[in-house]
Structure formats: C-alpha cells, structure tokens
C-alpha cells in the first residue's frame, strides 16, 4: 500500500481499517473528553479525518494510526473550547456493608480525585485496555511518561484505599 487510493478502494480501506476500531475509539474518546456528548462529537470528527487521510495510510498498525488522529483532533478541539469535566459517576449502590463494594467505591472516589494527567492514563490502561504504547500515541507523550503517570496514579489510589482502612478480600482464586 502507500499508493494513492481512489473511489471504492479508499472506501474499502476505510471499512477494513477503521470500522472495526469504532468501539475502542469511543472508549478512549470518553476517557479523553469525560463527557458523552463531547466524545461522540470527537469521534465523528476523528472518523472524518480518518476517511480523508486513509488514502495516505500504509495499512500497517491501524489502531495506532487512528489513535494518533484521535489525539490530534482532541488537541485541536481543546484549544477551541474547554470541555467540562464530568463529575465522577454517583455511586447508586444501596447502602451496603459488603467489603467489596466499599473497596470499589473507595477506588472510584480515589480515581475521581486524581489529577487529570494521572487519571487519564489510569483510565486508558485499566478501563480501556490500551497498551502503554497505545496510550503514548493517544496522548502524544513518551512511553516513559505513561509509565510514570500510571505509577503515581495507581499509587495514589492505593494510598487512598489503605487510608480508608478497607480490608481487602482474601485471594480466593
């Protein structure tokens, strides 16, 4: 590949390389924008840019290519408007003294309290399942930065959970 695509070939390349990644892109978009409506808008612009650029894509590593487009699109949009951060999802669980639910709630609260840079990396890895390299591409930072932010982000969550004094479940695998 790498040759100019025309007409149906361009569309075929888009269908083959981009459509299978829509769900993942939406997950990552939600982590980046923290607001559902903004995520959908971001995704539409990303898909459009991908469609326009697919004729220059060599066909290798479509996910990384798309994450780069997503990152660039998001960065440009952030310069134009400030995206309000979604508040941490309210925990609607009933009052429960179950240790696991208390632990989960503490983790969720600690995640919400993280500085944005740390929280985003934790979400991209732990919620969206991205590799370190994919996170680096998405955020436009070196892998070492991803590792460092992840280490600090999870470290703060751990400290918060331990400070809350919630006993952990025994390993029963």
């Amino acid at each position, binding site marked *: 590949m790498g040759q100019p695509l025309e*007409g*149906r070939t361009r*569309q*075929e390349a*888009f*269908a083959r390389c*981009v*459509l299978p990644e*829509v*769900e993942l892109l*939406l*997950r990552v978009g*939600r982590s980046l924008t923290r607001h*559902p409506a903004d*995520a*959908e808008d971001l*995704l*539409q612009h990303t*898909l*459009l*840019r991908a*469609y*326009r*650029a697919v*004729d*220059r894509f060599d066909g290798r590593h479509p996910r990384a290519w798309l994450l780069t487009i997503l990152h660039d699109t998001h960065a440009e949009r952030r310069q134009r408007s400030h995206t309000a951060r979604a508040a941490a*999802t309210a925990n609607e669980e009933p009052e429960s003294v179950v240790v696991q639910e208390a*632990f*989960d709630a503490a*983790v*969720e609260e600690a*995640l919400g309290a993280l500085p944005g840079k740390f929280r985003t990396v*934790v*979400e991209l*890895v*732990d*919620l*969206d399942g991205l*590799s*370190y390299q994919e996170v680096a591409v998405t955020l436009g930072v070196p892998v070492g930065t991803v*590792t460092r932010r*992840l*280490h600090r982000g*999870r470290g703060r*969550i*751990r400290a918060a*959970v*331990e400070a809350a004094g919630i006993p*952990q*479940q025994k*390993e029963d695998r």
Partner: protein
Amino acid sequence: MMLHRRREELRCKEVGRLLQSYLDGELDELWARRVARHLEDCRRCGMAVHTYTEIKRSLRHSADALPEDTLHRLRAFGRQLAEGRVPPGEEEAGA
C-alpha cells in the same frame, strides 16, 4: 558470588519501579521472571501486588458499558463514510 547473586535478585525498590509494568504485562520475559521470583519471597511486595491487582480489577469492573445508541450512531456514520456518503460540507479531500 555476592555480586553475581545481587545481579540476579531484585530489591524491593527495584521491584517497586517495575511493578506496574509487570502487572500490565509490559515487561519482557527476563525482567518479569525476576520480579516474579522476588514476589515469591517478599511478603511486602506480594501484598502490594495483591492491592494493585484488586484496584485493577475494581477499575475494570467499573468500566461503564458504552451507550449502545451512541455506538450505533457512530457505526452508522462510519458505514456511511465507507459507502462514500460524506456529509454535505465535508467533502473536501485531506491535504
């Protein structure tokens, strides 16, 4: 002998730096084995692993299900593009 042994065995501080990568499967096999060996014998680091594993599990469990309607709309939009039906005003080709 002791120097050789020190090269093989990791200390808690070193394991601490590698732990997140280890848990995410981002270490190469050699370093992952070294970390694993340390964890077999070190209670403190073992407890840290357990805590981080539970945190990861909790986060994964809390991952919101994607809104089906949003996903449906985006997939439909993508299919539209794949069929060459670009929205009005967006037809211009990329640079």
